């Protein structure tokens, strides 16, 4: 059980230990430590390619989630029957895209990566933002996660808007 971390790009220097620690803190807050989770850092080309294939949007983006469980109710943890089902899925972080946003807004890269990872984990847990109601529900969850994260770390992160 753990976080499978991969860094497939060379554009942005990633502190792997920091990223893993932040993701582990988010998992602790959500009580999902028993589930495996993939975090894959990619550049603009790669995330644009994935965005085009899976969302028909030919532009780079900050995060793409690939849930292992596709039809779970938001907020309800999956109940796997087998060991190999203790998996939430993969989150692709568009670290080049996030870095550009951070440079424009003078934000800390790893803080921003924590925020987009929290957003990605919410998707793995069944949250969506296709409607206003869904958006509000997801935003509420992200706000809760980051509030707890800030309490534990002393940081001041806010959800994606």
């Amino acid at each position, binding site marked *: 059980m*753990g*976080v*499978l*971390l*991969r*860094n*497939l*790009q*060379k554009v942005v*220097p990633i*502190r*792997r*230990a920091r*990223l*893993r*620690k932040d993701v582990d803190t988010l998992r602790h807050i959500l009580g999902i430590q028993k589930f495996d989770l993939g975090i*894959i850092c990619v550049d603009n080309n*790669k995330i644009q*390619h*994935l965005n085009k*294939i899976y969302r028909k949007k030919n532009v780079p983006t900050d995060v793409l989630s*690939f849930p292992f469980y596709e039809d779970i109710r938001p907020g309800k943890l999956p109940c796997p029957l087998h060991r190999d089902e203790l998996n939430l899925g*993969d989150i692709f972080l568009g670290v080049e895209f996030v870095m550009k946003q951070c440079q424009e807004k003078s934000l800390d890269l790893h803080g921003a990566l924590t925020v987009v990872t929290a957003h990605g984990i919410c998707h793995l847990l069944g949250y969506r933002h296709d409607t206003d109601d869904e958006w509000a529900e997801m935003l509420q969850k992200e706000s809760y996660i980051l509030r707890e994260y800030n309490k534990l770390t002393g940081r001041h992160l806010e959800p994606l808007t």
Partner: protein
Amino acid sequence: MLKSVVRAVGAAVRISSATTTTARALPLSCPTLCSPSSATTRPFTRSLWMLSNNGASSTCRQTLFRSKVLNPSMSCGCGELHTEGDKAFGSFLSDEIKEEKKIQKNKTLPKMSGGWELEMNGTEAKLTRNVAGEKITVTFNVNNSIPPNFEEEIEQGQQKSAEDEPEIVSTPNFVVEITKQAAKHSLVFDCHFPEDEMSHGDGEEESDIFAIREVSFQPEGDSEWKETSYTLNTDSLDWALYDHLMDFLADRGVDNTFADELTELSTTIEHQEYIKFLEDLQGFVKCN
């Protein structure tokens, strides 16, 4: 401190351009990590075979020996053996050398960014850099540094143009040695470029660009690898410790950018050495 950085996975055999149409080509979905776009690459004009020790080589030698005995040699008066085969071989090599020089992208070795100094010893390259009292040395050998192709069966009758052929990229194992001024031992990382068998599709199952295989302390400057030193194998390592080790290397200039540039450098050296070998072979075969 030179642990063998040779990957004993197979031998590469280049074939002439005239025979590439019949050669088995790599699949188009070659792992992207094995062929970074910025690396100096060239068309895949070499087929690869896996070494096998099933006695085939000794049989081959006997056959060749018999052929020498049965076929009289040509003589040019130099006192050495020259056969029709040697002549054909020399002509083949001449064409092959021309072809390889034509596709050679870099005549000079590409520079590594970050102030690394390069020292060559045959097929072995050593990169050295000093950072605030620490000496960082990276050693690799271009021999057997081209990974075997995970080729899929090509459908009968399928033709591929030269542009469709994947390019050769040298991805050698490399050893990073970090020496601190006051320490008796160096910290040594045995690194490699993972071969992605899974990433033939859209690449969701990809590995890191490079990975640490083993870590150990070794006496500084010793050429022999001390097997009695504790060796940390990363296969079953705590992932958090692994990440700290990767960050440690990145702080010393060994990161994904470095690894990408290393493949470019190694690819260029490997190709130069290959052409040099062909020229030596041509000189050996032909009549002097």
